[in-house]
């Protein structure tokens, strides 16, 4: 059988990740004080994307996983991106 290598993440890293997530949540709330009009969604989604990336990389260990899993996750992201692009070929040109 092939060797499954283990990676142990330190508490320190987790603490930093947690702080970063809380900080980003605070920003999400903070930006709702301003009316960004059409950009509201873009900003909210951008922050959410950063958070998702952090969660997937560290809490879900994809950062230390085999290439094939990274590719699978990447593929899903590309799919969502393409679906969004096509969707907006409707909303932007109506």
């Amino acid at each position, binding site marked *: 059988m092939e060797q499954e290598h283990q990676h142990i993440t330190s508490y320190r890293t987790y603490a930093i990740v947690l702080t970063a997530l809380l900080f980003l949540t605070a920003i999400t709330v903070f930006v709702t004080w301003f009316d960004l009009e059409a950009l509201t969604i873009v900003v909210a989604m951008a922050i959410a994307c950063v958070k998702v990336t952090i969660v997937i990389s560290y809490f879900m260990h994809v950062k230390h996983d085999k290439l094939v899993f990274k590719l699978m996750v990447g593929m*899903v992201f590309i*799919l969502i991106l*393409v*679906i969004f692009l*096509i*969707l907006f*070929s*409707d*909303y*932007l*040109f*109506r």
Partner: protein
Amino acid sequence: MEISAIENSYLKHGTKYKGILGWLTSTDHKRIGLMYMYAIMIFFLVGGLLGGLMRLELFRPGQDYITAQTYNAVFTVHGVIMIFLVVIPGLAAVFGNILMPIMIGARDVAFPKLNLFSFYIYIFGAILAISSQFLGKGAPDTGWTFYAPYSTDTNTNVVAAVLAAFVLGFSSILTGLNFIVTIHRMRAPGMTWFKMPLFPWSLYATAWIQLLATPIVGITLLMIIAERWFKIGFFDPNLGGDPILFQHLFWIYSHPAVYIMILPAMGVITEIIPTFSQKRVFGYKAIVFSSVAIAAVGYLVWGHHMYTAGMSVTARWFFSLLTFIVAVPSAIKVFNWISTMYKGSINLQPPFFFTMAFIFNFMIGGLTGLVLGSLATDIHVHDTAFVVAHFHYIIFGGMGFAFLAAIHYWFPKIYGRMYNNKLANTSCALIFGGFTLLYFPQFIIGLQGMPRRYFDYLPKYEWGQVFSFFGAIVLGIGILIMLINLFKSARKGKIASSNPWGGKTLEWTIASPPTVENFEEIPIITEGPYEYK
């Protein structure tokens, strides 16, 4: 000696429990697959009866037996049952479960308990779906598509039906996940990706659709419930929502879902044709890549269901282009099947006849799909009986016939017994004839303008509805004969050998029916799956 094969098989041995409990608690992939099959068969008969009720009402113009409201409920329930309970699980849950692990040389799927759990989720969803018909303020009347904003403000029992579809989605996701892991991790030693048989390949492509597309419809259905209960304005313009958003979200799932139905069907056909031609499959890699291409491009064409909904012209143009592109890999497969048969030694047995019917129906369904996919013609035929005929040709004529081909192909493997060939051929002819008589006229009256989902119509469409009615009767008789033949043979049929058709894939190398463990020793694979001499 051969009888003992049945005595030693998974049919007789399983868990520590005996009888029905031994089945209900079994994590054996073959038993789970069979349980799915019996459940699906029952739902198919219920859905079929509802279809018959619609045909009866449509026999003559005007109101005859049921009211307009009942008619709306009947086509909704017919659609929900057939789509979510029958054809989406269909081939993957039944033949995928029973045969895929064997075909890749494994003893079971990667997560057997999760597999059983998916089955119970499925049953739970089914109970919800059926009970939505009786509980609350009347059966849902939205059609299986649940279009907003009607679905967010009709008084009928939409929430239960929507929840049912949501729950069934989880069953589908978990089965997909299970299959992906199984195919990645449990192939027999030596079975590289390109030595894997093509039915498992098609299941692999399907599983990725199940895994990635189903959550989208899950969220969408929850959004309907949120809008109904909390008046959150996602879709209803009165609340500041956008009804077209619902259609986008719904079809982002539901177009890929049509490939959940048809890809495994194509996989089954790809197994049957080499066996009954005794010839190596033509263009193995082309078939693999076309499955993957269908799965990938299939995500991007959903807008062809919405040409008349008010999308931007740019989007409509783009979706029409993409729809034409996705037809290419489907056509590649048809060419591969034909080329495989060319100069083969064809063995005319029931599974092969069903397969021929599949190819014929799939061609008609696929080509009319292109009529619908091109922007200009779709404006004329959208929401007419033409669409109804198109998707019944693909789903029943395609996926349905592939299911029947599969059951006749693997029947001796599953039960260790053989059915009556003559009866099987008769039922195939009746089902095919009845099917054609039932759905072909719908193309014509659809082109003439017969709207879909109407319980009344102008007299000029009457001839088509009458033909369809008699087609439905012939079809019903054919199905009845087939069921009688199969049920009788499962218990009393002639004992079958382990490889009655001369197949080359791994399931034909083990006993009929297989033992609980499938293989005494896991085989080591050295050559491709279709090496006929």
